[in-house]
């Protein structure tokens, strides 16, 4: 962590901001960390190499809004889904190509997992159906759910895929010969999903301003409530000790150790001013968490000490996208007004 205490906001000294002109739906870094991609509500993808921050280029990817974005399983590309029914790949050079088209249905969720030897898995949800593809775009599986899929994630090993929907979530084994989901039941509408990095638990966000979790070893339910608004962003810390979440006027972190989160209180970071946290992203290497707020404020907090480092001032609209580079040296964020930036955290 930088020891900067004099500069009020890191964006000024270490950021590369840009006005992109449309709602920033998602931001991701490529697996090699050499590109950051901002997916916008006008269907364009804006690519920048953080090492050469003055050169940005825009690629027209979707005829409509982009809805989801993930790093491709290749080192340098991206995969995106749109409300034009297209699932497309975009190379670092900015070439877009179709992986699949689904007519008028929206491609709402995309998740990827890189395996060894250039192999990888790409999952995309279209309504109630999750399609699983290999690295070449060949269809491996098609999994149907009782209602539309609202959250989609691979586990850390790429062996299982979790999908949230009405009345719970489904866990599918990628390598299973017969496709039977393990169904995790809880009544209500589940709107986002995260899988614990050690595979201990699945957590969903719910319509009723709460999180729900299932411990996978014994199916024990975990109920995490008290949010003033819906939690839309979930992120486990690198070792799975903490689950960070949006939806309150602070970053809310639930302990997944010492018997928690059952019966334990969460910790709250960077709160106190009544502004709702809209995005969270845990650091890939250290116990740090980044948070974006509805007024545009972006901060990074040290979980152990609760110390908060201001990153961007509350000036550019609600933060709608937030991501760390794979090495944790850079943080990218975007807002609903189309403001985007990459901030450099590397030692100098």
């Amino acid at each position, binding site marked *: 962590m930088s020891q900067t205490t004099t500069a009020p906001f890191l964006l000024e000294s270490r950021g590369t901001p840009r006005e992109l002109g449309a*709602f920033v*739906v998602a931001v991701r870094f490529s697996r090699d960390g050499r590109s950051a991609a901002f997916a916008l*509500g*006008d269907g364009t993808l804006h690519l920048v190499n953080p090492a050469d921050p003055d050169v940005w280029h825009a690629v027209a990817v979707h005829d*409509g*809004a*982009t*809805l989801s974005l993930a790093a491709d399983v290749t080192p340098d590309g991206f995969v995106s889904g749109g*409300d034009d029914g297209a699932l497309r790949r975009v190379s670092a050079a900015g070439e877009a190509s179709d992986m699949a088209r689904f*007519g*008028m*249905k*929206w491609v*709402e969720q995309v998740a990827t997992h890189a395996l060894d030897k250039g192999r990888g898995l790409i999952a995309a949800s279209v*309504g*109630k159906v999750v399609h699983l593809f290999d690295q070449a775009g060949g269809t491996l599986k098609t999994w149907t759910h009782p*209602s*539309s899929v*609202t959250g989609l994630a691979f586990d850390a090993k790429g062996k299982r895929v979790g999908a949230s929907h*009405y*009345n719970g979530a489904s866990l599918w084994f990628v390598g299973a010969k017969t496709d039977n989901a393990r169904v995790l039941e809880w*009544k*209500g*509408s589940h709107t986002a999903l995260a899988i614990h990095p050690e595979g201990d638990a699945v957590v969903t966000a*719910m*319509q*009723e301003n709460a999180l729900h979790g299932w411990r996978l070893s014994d199916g024990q339910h975990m109920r995490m409530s008290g949010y003033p*608004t*819906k939690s839309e962003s979930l992120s486990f810390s690198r070792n799975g000790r903490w689950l960070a979440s949006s939806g309150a006027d602070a970053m809310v972190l639930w302990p997944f150790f010492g018997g928690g989160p059952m019966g334990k209180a969460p910790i709250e970071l960077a709160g106190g001013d009544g502004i709702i946290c809209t995005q969270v992203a845990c650091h890939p290497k250290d116990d740090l968490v980044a948070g974006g707020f509805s007024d545009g404020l972006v901060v990074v907090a040290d979980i152990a000490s609760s110390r908060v480092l201001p990153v961007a001032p509350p000036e550019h609209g609600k933060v709608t996208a937030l991501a760390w580079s794979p090495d944790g040296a850079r943080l990218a964020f975007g807002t609903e007004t189309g403001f985007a930036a990459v901030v450099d955290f590397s030692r100098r």
Partner: protein
Amino acid sequence: MAETSTQVPVTVLTGYLGAGKTTLLNRILTEQHGRKYAVIINEFGELGVDNDLVVDTDEEVFEMNNGCICCTVRGDLIRIVGGLMKRRGKFDGIIIETTGLANPAPVAQTFFVDEGVKEKARLDAIVTVVDAKHLPARLKDSHEAEDQIAFADVIVLNKTDLVTPDELEAVEQQIRKINKFAVIHRTERASLPIDQVLNRGAFDLNRVLARDPEFLTGEDDHEHNEDITSLSFEVERPIDPEKFNAWIGGLLQDKGQDLLRTKGILAYENEDRRFAFQAVHMIADGDFIGPWKDGDPRVSRIVFIGRNLNRPQLRRGFEGCVAD
């Protein structure tokens, strides 16, 4: 619902299969009005829909876990409205076409319950298309046809060329018996000026509440049957907001399942703005709208559409909200 709203207006089109919903939708979309609409449909009906931005969805209703058994909402609409808002500035309104058998309550409740949706979109009007020839039979064999009329702000009484003038009069009477506050348009092939359907601000309520044909009849019958009826009341003295909230809260809690729609414009004590109140079953919403106009009487009015409406009890309750 504020008059200076920047929220996108949403029009809900309901009606039985074959009533003329899709014909009306295509009329709206092809008429030269210089406005762009996002259209949310649930299936391809008899006719295709000709529009740049059409979203095909499955009506996915779920029950909220809030202890309210009639609080059902459309999760698919929450996601779609959220997604459409990311393209902001590219369209002027949203039109939602429901399936023929749909109960309008979950659609309407979605716009009251979900914070994200409320922030970005407002329900402009529920428009119900009915078939003049077949409506009497539909009303006999299903609750849905009756519910769709009860929920309507605007009713398009279509296919008038297929019935005699007497039959038309009779079917309109049937509609009025269920919902006397909706605006009715008689049409052939769903032909009417689209400004009669879109951007009605029907939830602004002024028009609706101003045109009660029977405000002063004073009949005090107690309707106790499963038929849907509509009632309205007015008081001339200012309302005490605390008394009103206590009364309406309790009423919706107890009778919410029978109360399909409740709407009101209230003159609060020591307040120059009008307070607009509305509810669908137990789910209520209210906000201040523009100020009372100079010279207009500051009269509070409330409308109930539902089953088993107890007129004297509702009247006494509303009159009991008057400030001391």
